[in-house]
């Protein structure tokens, strides 16, 4: 513990991570608070998956911060035995940016909803992605406002009948993956509440990414929007509609992997029968492509999760993280100018003396 001086790293009062990271268990990450979502809510599965994967990440609870806004999903931090801030509606990325850029030694997670993150909080989200702040952003997309009891959200399909749109909504939804890619996101993925294995693997990759990781998680709200993802979770859809993206592999899906994706000569991604197209003409997925155009084209395969829909990591490229750039400037300023000397600063400029 460094108790003296004004420490550039902001680590005053912080001990190094106690030993035993390797011995962490799921219980170390579960708080004692009663979980209060509706029975059957998809949030439970996500919570279980996250609590399950945390011990594997090698980061102790005290170095982990969960930040959220307001919404059902935003209750998440209360259930994690880490540091946490339950913020205000839409502002989680801003609060988290404050934490992450002040303290590059922490791992900061953001939990947000489709309303919290894409409606009121859209600006903070796209700016966090653009800056590549070192945040792991989990967007629980249930295509509805849960907490306020069922209004449509910016991801609800056109024509959606809700409390606030009794005649059906007249606005076109965002595709969160496209939006994130348009906002320069360096890590963009999509997964599903009920697919724990996939969710866990994507989260693990996100945690390892330095910079902003954006994960859209399709989450069922069984009270106000039940079955929104039935095309991916229902018995049949499960095998026909999930297009798992895997780096370096041709994109194939469906029963017997009989379908695939290829790029048309004019730049669109399209679904084809593997037999017709020929295996060799299928698109080989490349997460690491610097140009996000391919990832973008894949994001347009599905306008909404009602048919074949890509899941997995659309993009994962390296770009300097915001906090690291800031840190670098602090260090090099101190190197070049010497550490700050208050007396010298106050006495700088044109000074004169009166005796």
């Amino acid at each position, binding site marked *: 513990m460094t108790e003296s001086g*004004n420490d550039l790293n*902001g680590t005053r009062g*912080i001990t190094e991570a106690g030993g035993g990271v390797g011995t962490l268990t799921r219980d170390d990450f579960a708080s004692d608070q009663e979980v209060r979502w509706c029975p059957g809510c998809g949030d439970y599965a996500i919570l279980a998956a996250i609590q399950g994967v945390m011990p594997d990440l090698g980061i102790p609870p005290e170095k982990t911060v969960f930040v959220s806004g307001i919404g059902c999903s935003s209750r998440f931090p209360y259930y994690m035995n880490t540091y946490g801030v339950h913020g205000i509606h839409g502002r989680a990325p*801003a609060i988290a940016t404050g934490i992450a850029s002040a303290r590059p030694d922490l791992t900061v997670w953001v939990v947000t909803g489709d309303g919290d993150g894409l409606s009121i909080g859209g600006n903070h989200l796209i700016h966090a992605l653009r800056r590549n702040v070192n945040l792991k952003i989990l967007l629980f997309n249930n295509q509805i406002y849960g907490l306020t009891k069922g209004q449509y959200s910016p991801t609800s399909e056109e024509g959606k009948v809700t409390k606030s749109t009794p005649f059906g909504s007249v606005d076109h939804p965002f595709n969160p993956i496209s939006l994130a890619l348009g906002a320069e996101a360096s890590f963009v993925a999509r997964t599903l509440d009920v697919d724990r294995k996939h969710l866990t693997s994507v989260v693990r990759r996100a945690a390892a990414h330095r910079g902003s990781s954006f994960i859209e998680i399709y989450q069922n709200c069984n009270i106000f929007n039940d079955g929104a993802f039935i095309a991916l979770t229902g018995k049949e859809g499960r095998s026909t509609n999930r297009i798992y993206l895997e780096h370096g592999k041709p994109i194939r899906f469906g029963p017997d992997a009989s379908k695939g994706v290829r790029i048309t000569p004019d730049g669109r991604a399209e679904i084809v029968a593997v037999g017709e197209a020929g295996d060799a003409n299928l698109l080989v997925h490349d997460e690491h492509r610097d140009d996000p155009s391919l990832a973008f084209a894949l994001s347009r395969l599905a306008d909404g999760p009602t048919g074949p829909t890509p899941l997995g990591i659309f993009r994962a490229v390296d770009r300097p993280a915001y906090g690291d750039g800031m840190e670098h400037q602090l260090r090099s300023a101190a190197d070049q100018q010497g550490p*700050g000397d208050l007396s010298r600063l106050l006495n700088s400029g044109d000074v004169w003396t009166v005796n």
Partner: protein
Amino acid sequence: MSTQIAPPEGTDRKELDRVVIRFAGDSGDGMQLTGDRFTSVSAVFGNDLATMPDYPAEIRAPAGTLAGVSAFQIHFADFDILTPGDQPSVLVAMNPAALKANLKDLIPGGLLIVNTDAFDNNNLEKVGYTENPLTDGSLAGFQVYEIPMTTMTVESVKDTGVNKKEAERSKNMFALGVISWMYSRPLEPTIAWLEKKFAKKPHLAQANVAALKAGHAFGETAELSAFEIKPATLAPGTYRRITGNQALAYGLIAASVQSKLPLFLASYPITPASDILHELSRHKNFGVRTVQAEDEIAAAGMMVGAAFAGHLAITTTSGPGLDLKSESIGLAVSLELPMVIVDVQRGGPSTGLPTKTEQSDLLHAMYGRHGEAPLPIVAAYSPTSCFWAGIEACRIALKYMTPVILLTDGYLANSAEPWRVPSVDKLPDISIPFASQPNAGEDFWPYLRDETTLARPWAIPGTPGLEHRVGGLEKADGTGNISYDPDNHHLMTQLRAAKIKAIEEEVEPLEFDADEDAKVIILGWGGTYGAIGAAVRRLRNRGKPIARAHLKHLNPFPKNTGDVLRRFDKVVIPEINTGQLSRLIRAEFLIDTIGINKVRALPFRAGDLEQELLKIMES
């Protein structure tokens, strides 16, 4: 007052006690720089002084138009002065627009120095002069020096190899030379400065120096009036000039050093607060992190995050930005984390008069959040006091675990004064310990309060065993768990209020300075300090007994405030708003107040205040 007016003629240096000069010209004429150089030389010479720039409104208007006029006023004297002066006694007008925009402020009989070269038909027309004021007799009430500055400048620099545009641009140095001769300022510091500034373009250095010298020589040759203003007797020490914004930036850095916490500033540019961001972003070697956020809401959110993370977290803004930060500040009140929100007040409502000053955010700072969300308010009162205010706001924030609003204003922000540089080892230690271990048996309760300050512990991420969650939902006192219990909510509401109220115990008592027999007290706050002081001085010079006090803490008030005010028959509160402090004083103490309220988005003039006060004292 008579000493302010220049005598008609004579080369003997007449001694003056004070002078107010305003340099005015087109935005492109370099008036800010001219004023700044003159100020610098006067400061080093030992005068007391105060300055006020007056930038054109926001964007650079076409040359020669009224909208494009830029001015700089300096008040310097052989005694301690309090304001940049009500009205100039000397006006330097580089073109017709500058004359038109500023003449109304020049005192009757004042000295007017014009650059005749700029008074051509084209320029006269641009500002709507149908007759040339230099020849139509309209300036008869002033003493006018007509100098063809452009011609003489061009002539003086002809051997330096500059082109015509560069030559003409040097005319501000010519003007400075003239004024330097008249007020016996040395040229050397400016020559040195020019040579440094143009080190890479020596021909420009040469030309500017030549123009400066030519102006000086002209003054001497033409036997312009010449004056002397002796150095002021200031307290011994090392001095420098500083603006409010810069002083505040230094105050925040000092608070960081004295609290042993890294400084974190998240801000969004806005006039007149941006310079604090600019200044702080230069001091990365102090570990100062600055983030230019996407907007004010983000800036406030980042501040909250950095505070949670254990930094000394700050955001700076002006009125419109304060509106946007309301919700996040409310969250900060609920989280009970230390941070400082600086509001550099400007003319409102809405976009209002962005480059001007006002005191109209006090009630907004006090009440501008939904729910019951009290917080302390500190106000700077002079440019240099911003240094103190920065430290004081941080001190309170840290000790009481609360967001603090620090109010300054556009006038304080941009005005400069000599500042006696404080000795670093006299600065207070404002550090507080982070929580490092459980405080409730095996558990850590984030809302278990200190008995005296009612502050909760500050446990920051990275500390094992103290993991906890905070949020904006009401929470149980002690454990901090979400609580919908009605009685707990009542308790928490009271505790949050009591914590802020408790600060009064250690706020320094309201000082007041009363003449014997004074029946009237003038109570001020914020940037009117100087003007009120000058008005009081004038009243005293007239033999009128009076009392004054100035509030630096607006919430809570110093404990003795009511007692002090009740000693007097009349409580007069001058404010650049419609009576915001008045409303607080009336509600708090049920004391009647008399407001002097001019909402002209300009600092008060001491003379106007004097007159208003006289009226009140005599009624």
